[in-house]
């Protein structure tokens, strides 16, 4: 079943740039993978943006939150894939995540929330809530502060594909 929650730009317009793929067990074996992958990919994709350093900082911050979300929210075994493609000013991050029904529902429901007008309030509440951090906070932040446009699909019963379109040169203005 595919659940399209947003009309993104046509897939054909996006040119692949970089991809990182590994077993999900390898990915979650070390927290620093989030930082290292986000920093490396950010540097690689930013060099030909208008301000490469600023773009790299923003991209790294956004991607790190996505990766930290995956780190904490996945289920089962399988391959984890982070694919980055570009169409003009938009960079698309596609995360293929091993997920059971519960984890898939988490992503599907969160992406639904991201398209509701209440997402800003939810983000603020999550930022200042007492107790453990809300697992959805990184996705909220990207939608609110970075203007990311999300979609999610389930290619099969054991996988979720989360897509975030980032137009960071616009969001920094």
């Amino acid at each position, binding site marked *: 079943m595919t659940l399209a929650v947003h009309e993104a730009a046509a897939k054909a317009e996006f040119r692949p740039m970089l991809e990182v793929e590994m077993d999900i067990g390898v990915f979650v074996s*070390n*927290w*620093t993978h*989030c*930082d*290292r992958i986000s*920093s490396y990919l950010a540097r690689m994709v930013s*060099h*030909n943006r*208008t*301000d*490469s*350093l*600023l773009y790299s*900082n*923003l991209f*790294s*911050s956004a991607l*790190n*939150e996505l990766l*930290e979300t995956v780190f904490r929210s996945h289920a089962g075994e399988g391959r984890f894939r982070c694919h980055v493609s570009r169409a003009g000013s938009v960079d698309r991050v596609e995360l293929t995540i091993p997920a059971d029904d519960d984890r898939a529902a988490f992503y599907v429901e969160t992406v639904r929330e991201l398209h509701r007008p209440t997402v800003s309030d939810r983000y*603020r509440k999550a*930022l*200042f809530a*007492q107790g453990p*951090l809300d697992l959805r*906070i*990184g996705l909220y*932040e990207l939608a609110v*502060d970075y203007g990311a446009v999300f979609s999610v699909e389930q290619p099969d019963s054991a996988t979720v594909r989360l897509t975030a379109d980032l137009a960071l040169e616009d969001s*920094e203005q």
Partner: protein
Amino acid sequence: MAKPSQSSFVVKYDDNNQEFSIIGSMRPQDVSELEACTKLLETSLAGVRGTFYVNVKRLVRLNNIAFHVLAGSLVRACSERPDLRVAVITSSVVGWSTRKFGALNKVNPNIVVEEYDSEFYPGQSFLEEGEFIPILRTQTKMTWRHERNILPRHGMREGLTIADICCGIGDFAVLVYKEFKPARLVALDHSRSSLGYARKVAADFGIQGIEYIYGDAAEMLLEDEQFDFVTCRHALQIFNKPDLILKELFRICKPGGRVYVTNEKISQCLGEPRGESIQWTYDELSKLFAHFDMDLEFGPKSRKFMVEAGFDDVRMESFMVTNLDGDPQDFADIVKSWEELFAGGMSQQRGDSAEFVEKFRRGFQDHLFAALHPKGYAGWPVWVASGRKPA
């Protein structure tokens, strides 16, 4: 228990200024990794009166786990103590931090976010006005005639990784790119308008290999030891703390690489005929810049600053841009623009009398006269210094 992460940050508290600083990357897996930071923050908060400053200008990365912890401490402190004010100092260079920390103000209005930017270099605004751009280009054209031959003596060659810090309108970077074909060329400045112009010029010339980036030369986000050759031209002289800039140039330079700076000693501008009037005006120009915390006499001091910054093999030389370099009108155009900018703008801002401004202008006009005189000679000296970062 969480495994130790690679969060690499430093926290400091300056009691004198009530300033809590976080520098680096803060992406913990678990709040327990921030215990020492949280303890220092809360201890610091407990002892302050009035305004507590949180300096995150060089906090490059921060995840939500860390933000949640920091925000919790700050909001709690302000809720418990209505007399407490917290000022979070962010940097526009980082990109995300002003927006992120801005959320604190919505929760407690006693927490304000102040974005650090070019206001910290008030004098330089004179030099970043759009109308000054054509003259900057002419200046670079005239100094380049000398520097293209000087640069190789200071280690410049093809294929290097180069940073041009305080690149201004980026024309020097374009010339370096064409002449020395660097492997990578990053050009940084803190004037968005200058960078916009630089990108347009590069695009007009079909040059795509220069990375123009926005940044503060005193607190760059460029990583350590990235560049073989770092240039910083006519910039140390207009910062009130040139040692801070040199420290940053040293930091981003690879061991064995070189840092190249140029500066003026403006009081040694000269010309004949009418040398006396010219001399008086440039002496006064030096004092005028000093009034705005800029040292246009910096040139010969470069060696001392470079040695004190830790460089070895310091090489130094000077050259004189003159009216005999190409078209004398180019030299005259530069002097004319200096008259308008310095006698017209800066001198008036200092509150100088009409009599002073008239005499001040006359020296520029006499310099221009000397430049265009068929038997005249007019000069503008520039000092070059470079140093090697010890391997």
